[in-house]
């Protein structure tokens, strides 16, 4: 019993270190991702995005084609743990909010990049689909993993 304690303490310290390392690396990766998202959004801002079902002046557009963009993204374990704590007191789950925002913006950008490659000027009827892939792992808990899908109809306006 006495010999088991130091080992347990070592294990806890090790897990804590891994968690903190994950938090630091994950945090910097997340900030870099947000910067990159902002740049790409600026570059693609000439494509008009709209979630209306009906295209205005449909006779002036051509080459309608559906585009998809999707991404699977996860939080680090530490943030998932923090989210668990947040459940106790309620309030906004910031880490979950940033995860969803990253996923949604990334999916939309992938859609827009495809639309740009096709020479589209507008994307209509943009919709988002979401699924929680954590359940795909056969257990709840662990890191949050989400899949975000963005789809819409890209068109090119003549003239």
């Amino acid at each position, binding site marked *: 019993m006495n010999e088991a304690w130091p080992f347990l303490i070592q294990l806890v310290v090790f897990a804590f270190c*891994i968690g903190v*390392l*994950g938090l630091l*690396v*994950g945090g910097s*990766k*997340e900030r870099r*991702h947000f910067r990159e998202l902002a740049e790409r959004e600026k570059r693609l801002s000439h494509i008009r995005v709209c979630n209306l*079902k*009906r*295209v205005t002046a*449909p*006779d*002036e*557009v*051509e080459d*309608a*084609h*559906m585009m*998809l963009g*999707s*991404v*699977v*993204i*996860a*939080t*680090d*374990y530490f*943030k998932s743990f923090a989210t668990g704590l947040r459940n106790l007191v309620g309030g906004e789950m910031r880490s979950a909010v940033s*995860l969803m925002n990253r996923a949604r913006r*990334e999916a939309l950008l992938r859609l827009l990049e495809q639309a740009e490659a096709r020479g589209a000027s507008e994307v*209509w*009827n943009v*919709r988002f*689909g979401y*699924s*929680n*892939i954590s*359940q*795909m*792992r*056969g*257990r709840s808990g*662990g*890191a949050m*993993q989400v*899949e975000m*899908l963005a*789809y*819409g*109809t890209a*068109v090119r306006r003549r003239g």
Partner: protein
Amino acid sequence: MIVVNTETIPGREIAEAIGLVQGNTIRAKHVGRDIAAGFKNLVGGELRGYTELLTEARRQALERMLAQAKQLSADGVVNVRFTTSAVTGGAAELYAYGTAVRLAPAAGARYE
């Protein structure tokens, strides 16, 4: 085959709505990818293995939908929607559905 998720095909006229076409697939991830994802979860970020898996699976669901549309000799599919659901542990279902339509000949046929 023209595929759009708007109710109409912009610039074209729909002559006839044939009916609902659908396609689905259920995919399981494989263990290697799951282990890799487990490590990736330490720092968070994109899980590329899963992104590829789901993109590929969704394309298959779409292709099955298009095969149905082709069988009905449709010209296009409008109002396409996607859903994803985690059916059992370890697998996800991807489902695509839309309305198959026949188009009127292009108005004032444009030659390009």
